[in-house]
């Protein structure tokens, strides 16, 4: 392939940013230069990191900067532009170097709108090219502290901070480079159970310095890994299967079966991806785990890698989680320096390298095959399944994908044994579970409760519904609206299914009587319209049409035939979309609208 790069040269800042990541350009031997096309593409997977380096340094992707990346990585410019324009956090036009991304999604609806109005008055319209600007953002995974904001200030080094309870004052402080992330002392506001006895997943959260390795080792961290190494991979997989653990990322697939399939896959090497893209509106559990107990995540990855024959694992973390990314990176550094990871797992096992990869604003990259594409340096478009990731995954190799919370359950199972894990809950819902409770409850936050608790019990723990209860959104934007009638439903896979809902990522978002249901439903429609990757017709055009349909309804002017349209469109999207995004996009909208009968007057 001949590369045709017509871009102007990069600025010094751009060149430095890219060279810092990729190393100085190698001197190409004359013979190589003569060979047609020169040296071939080697590290396409570094495209996303390279684009991050540019955006972090200068605040946007320029033609010169992108051209230089193309030259270094030997990626065709059109291809690289396709990637650059896919991700929401990158700008392909000049924009202010300091940007605040304000969440205006479901839980932050009102507070977010108020902030946006104020920012508009102070800084002018969104996306200007001055000193500072603002943008709207989908859920930032801080719903328990609504409204949330994420500030990025380009430079060397870049400054990024995400925070809840956002105010203009806090945003201004962040513009000035003041870190706004919560302190350990303040954590109990959002993880109210902090320090309570008997917590299995949140046990260390808020109690220990999150990156202090000695403190963690003293508290039992990596004991599960030690046991895994002593019993061997097959026995580890038997434990996991015996525990009944199912995936906590939304699809609830039996974890043991997935591990067995990867371990048995003949192709080599095997890869592991820890799915830390957490972008389902209403979900923030993985963020809390990564920020406050990063070693538990690493230990889970290490055990999973050992059990499935993986020597290279990736953590794909959403771009809006700077604190979690920093803590994980630091934890990896310390654990590697201590010989727990790296050349030999815990000093005696096989090697394991863990790389952190940062997303760039795309909900769809949480879908496992889109996640692979993204790590491989491509647009985050889902692949057709089969073949399944356990056979053909990252770089075309057998790959284990697990959610952060799933992996954090793993050391626990190894420490306490499958039987005691399986004794909690039942069916496909065993063990402890994290619930993301936000909205109109007394104490929004992250709660660990045993599988089997009812919705009513979850609400009670979270301080009840002091302002009344209008409806609840279970499972996030891809979930279902339910009402009081669902309060005695056990929040298990089976229980939620029985009422026609789904547990999803264990989101419980509560709306009181002051909420505006149609506005919320419209925001959900907008979310899917924004986040569809655009590959398949039912979702690409379907999400646009769904949004239009809800917008009509919001204006009080639905058309005759809209009900049938919604039904048919929903079925086609569910049946014919490639991936879970399109397949579930109509669920919350459908259930939400159904709860809103009677219909307003039909438009003529």
């Amino acid at each position, binding site marked *: *392939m*001949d*590369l045709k790069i*017509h871009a102007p040269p990069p600025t010094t800042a751009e060149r430095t940013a890219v060279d810092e990541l990729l190393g100085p350009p190698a001197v190409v031997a004359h013979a190589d230069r003569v060979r047609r096309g020169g040296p071939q593409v080697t590290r396409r997977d570094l495209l996303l990191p390279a684009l991050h380096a540019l955006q972090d340094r200068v605040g946007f992707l320029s*033609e010169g900067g*992108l051209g230089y990346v193309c030259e270094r990585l030997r990626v*065709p*410019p*059109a291809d*690289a*532009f*396709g990637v650059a*324009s*896919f991700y*929401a956090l990158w*700008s*392909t036009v000049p924009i202010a170097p300091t940007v605040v991304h304000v969440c205006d999604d479901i839980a932050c609806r009102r507070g977010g709108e108020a902030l946006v109005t104020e920012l508009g008055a102070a800084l002018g319209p969104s*996306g200007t090219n001055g000193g500072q600007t603002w*943008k*709207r953002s*989908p859920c930032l995974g801080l719903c328990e502290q609504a409204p949330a904001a994420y500030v990025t200030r380009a430079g060397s080094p870049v400054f990024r901070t995400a925070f809840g309870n956002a105010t203009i004052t806090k945003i201004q402080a962040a513009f000035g480079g003041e870190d706004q992330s919560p302190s350990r002392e303040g954590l109990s506001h959002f993880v109210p159970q902090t320090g309570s006895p008997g917590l299995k997943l949140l046990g260390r959260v808020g109690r220990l310095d999150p990156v202090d390795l000695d403190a963690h080792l003293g508290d039992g961290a990596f004991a599960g890994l030690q046991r895994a190494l002593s019993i061997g991979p097959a026995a580890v997989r038997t434990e996991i299967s015996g525990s009944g653990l199912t995936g906590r990322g939304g699809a609830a697939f039996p974890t043991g079966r997935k591990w067995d399939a990867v371990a048995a896959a003949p192709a080599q090497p095997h890869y592991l991806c820890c799915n830390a893209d957490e972008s389902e509106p209403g979900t923030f559990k993985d963020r809390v785990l990564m920020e406050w107990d990063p070693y538990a995540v690493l230990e889970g990855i290490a055990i999973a890698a050992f059990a499935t024959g993986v020597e290279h694992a990736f953590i794909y973390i959403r771009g809006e989680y700077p604190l979690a990314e920093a803590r994980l990176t630091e934890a990896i550094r310390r654990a590697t320096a201590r010989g727990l990871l790296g050349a030999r797992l815990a000093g005696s096992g096989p090697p394991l390298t863990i790389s952190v990869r940062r997303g760039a*604003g*795309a909900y769809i990259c949480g879908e496992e095959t889109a996640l692979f594409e993204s790590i491989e340096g491509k*647009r985050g478009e889902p692949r*057709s399944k*089969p073949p399944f990731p356990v056979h053909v995954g990252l770089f075309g190799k057998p790959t284990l994908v697990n959610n952060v919370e799933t992996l954090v359950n793993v050391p626990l199972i190894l420490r306490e044994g499958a039987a005691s894990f399986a004794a909690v809950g039942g069916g496909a819902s065993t063990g402890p579970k994290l619930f993301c409770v936000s909205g109109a409850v007394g104490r929004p936050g992250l709660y660990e409760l045993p599988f089997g608790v009812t919705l009513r019990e979850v609400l009670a723990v979270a301080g009840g519904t002091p302002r009344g209860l209008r409806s609840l959104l279970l499972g996030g934007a891809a979930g279902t609206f339910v009402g009081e009638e669902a309060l005695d439903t056990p929040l298990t896979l089976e229980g939620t299914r029985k009422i026609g809902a789904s547990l999803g990522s264990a989101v419980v978002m509560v709306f009181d009587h002051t909420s505006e249901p149609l506005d919320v439903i419209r925001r959900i429609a*907008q979310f899917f*319209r*924004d*986040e*569809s*990757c*655009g*590959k*398949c*017709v*039912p979702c*690409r055009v*379907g*999400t*646009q*049409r769904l*949004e*239009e349909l809800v*917008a*009509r*309804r919001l*204006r009080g*002017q639905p*058309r005759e*035939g809209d009900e049938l*349209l919604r039904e*048919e469109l929903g*079925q*086609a999207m*569910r*049946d*014919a*979309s490639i991936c879970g995004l399109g*397949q579930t996009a109509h669920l919350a909208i459908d259930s939400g609208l159904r709860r809103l009968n009677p219909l307003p007057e039909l438009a003529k």
Partner: protein
Amino acid sequence: MNPDEINEPIWKVPPPRASVMPARPPDPACQTITLQIDGRTVTVPAGTTLLQAASRLGLRIPTLCWAPTLTPINACRICVVEVEGARTLAPACARPAEAGMVVQTGSERVRLSRKLVLELLASSVALDRAPELLRLIQEYGADPERFGPSAAPADRRDARHAGHHHVGDGATAETVAQPVKVDNSLYVRDYARCVLCYKCVEACGTDAQHTFAITIAGRGFDARVSTEWDAPLPEGACVYCGNCINVCPTGALVFRTEHELREAGSWAPERQQETDTICPFCGVGCTLRVKVQDDKLVSVTSPPEVDVTGGNLCVKGRFGTSYVNG
């Protein structure tokens, strides 16, 4: 025609008909799979797609983004079929057949999804030059009007930013309407007709040309075929092989000659003739299918079933023969 009867010089002899690629002989060691499609049993080699298996039974499944010469991208979803026991429908073009599968190619569920796909496409894209799609719209009773009147063309689709869009009031249905891109003398890109089937991107990339001049940019409803930074073609990597034109199913990519005749209102299919010939330029001997209107050459394609070309040509064969127009 009997060659003996010809006493004209060889170069005046009408060209041979396109040679069709012979079917691959069955691999003797290859595993076979037996499945049921529309109540009939069929046995196929492992790795056969449901589309291929169905065609063995003479069953026709509509396709749009699939082509025999391209890697299945399974984007359009018009080819979905129902596999018993599966939660969702499966794209026949990409889904490998499995032993014991029970497949319905025309069930209610299948027809509903196909109808909606057609309605969604026709409500957002200009399809008046896509006869096969127009026929399917009839066949499936699709009603694109049900989404309401089309919205006025939005400006600067190419400048849209992923994850952000203007939320309308739902009174009209958004479309991909936009001005034709005319930036070179050889072909035009009329993306108001683009169904985003990815075929041109595949033909320009790994499936044929390996030039990578075009890509899919943007996301969701704002996704579009684009060069880097939406640069005019002469400023990018395009080598004008025109292989994208050959695969485009909707008339979004056409010869500039065709575009200008249409603009002038003098495009007249009834006065057109197609002739197969051999490219005069090099020793490969690609088959050219030359379209002529009023004694003027208007476009050159190559039939995809021809083994020499697979439908692909280079710039010389595609665009270099206009000298015949004098």
